[in-house]
């Protein structure tokens, strides 16, 4: 029995596959994930329309809630874990997240600078004449 379990852990898991557990446990995992996701979604929509909190904090709160909800989806629906059988999947995800941050952050940064350095539109129009 013991060498069976060590054998199982040496094998990698496909993304989306769970390590062990019966049907009841697996369904329970999805129920917990659904509950958490619904809670985070409801909080997001509530915060977006409320006057109860300091207004400039709302965009930050929405972004944080969105990242938290993506985490919930990854853990409870896609079953990404930190276990040794999941290393390849997590490394690929980390690389993907890096590229996503480079693309979005880089675009916003560059375009904000370009906007600042641009001549006002009417002056460009005059130069073209």
């Amino acid at each position, binding site marked *: 029995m013991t*060498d*069976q379990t060590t*054998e*199982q852990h*040496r*094998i*990698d*898991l*496909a*993304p*989306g*596959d769970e390590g062990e557990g019966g*049907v009841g446990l*697996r*369904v329970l995992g*999805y*129920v917990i*994930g*659904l509950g958490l*996701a*619904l809670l985070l*979604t409801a909080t*997001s*929509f509530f915060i*977006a*329309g409320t006057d109860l909190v300091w207004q400039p904090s*709302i*965009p930050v709160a*929405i*972004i944080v*809630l*969105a990242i938290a*909800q*993506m985490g919930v*989806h*990854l853990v409870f*629906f*896609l079953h990404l874990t930190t276990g040794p059988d999941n290393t*390849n*999947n997590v490394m*690929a*995800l980390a*690389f*993907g997240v890096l*590229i*996503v941050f480079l*693309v*979005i952050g*880089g*675009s*916003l940064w560059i*375009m904000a600078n370009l906007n600042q350095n641009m001549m006002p539109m009417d002056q460009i129009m005059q130069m073209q004449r």
Partner: protein
Amino acid sequence: MADTTLAYAQPDPHRLRGIAHAAVAHEGPAPKRIVTGFGFWIFLLSDIVMFSCFFATYAVLVDQTDGGPKGAELFDLRRVAIETVCLLLSSFTCGLANIAADVRNKLWFQLGMAATCVLGLAFLYLELTEFADLVARGAGPTRSAFLSAFFSLVGCHGLHVSAGILWLLTMMAQVVAKGFRADIERRIMCFALFWHALDIIWVAVFSVVYLLGSKP
């Protein structure tokens, strides 16, 4: 055929029968289910990178309304909330169908997939009526750079959902025609990954586009 099905679940896939040193020295290639799943995971991540380009475009162009309507005047958050719940529940039923496929229960698999399909179609219906409404109000994709970026981003997600529904119906038919063969099971696993990934992208869409955009 019985050898290849669920090879990942076997305690001893390479039939080493407890020869410990042999297991360390010659692990051999990973089972096909893992290779397929990992390859599809790479595809999904590249799809997410593609979406990040659309998000970057949207974020850069969000204020370029050319005197036209802003997001706060256009978005109907109640509709978006219903869309979100539809997609979230469909992700849940898709997970249930995936479990049913693993334990070879055809009835629950078809029920789960049918529920996923109905919820996905409800989502698409709401999105398409929203688009039609925007175009009818003169806020089509040609109105301003902001609306072009909006329609590209949200429309691209909608196209993915449409493709996902076609794939879903194919899987339902294949299970009826061929049963839970090893290759069919791998396709079901890939479909579940695809559908969950679409839900993750939608979380970013409703947060960044609709909730942040509805702020004046």
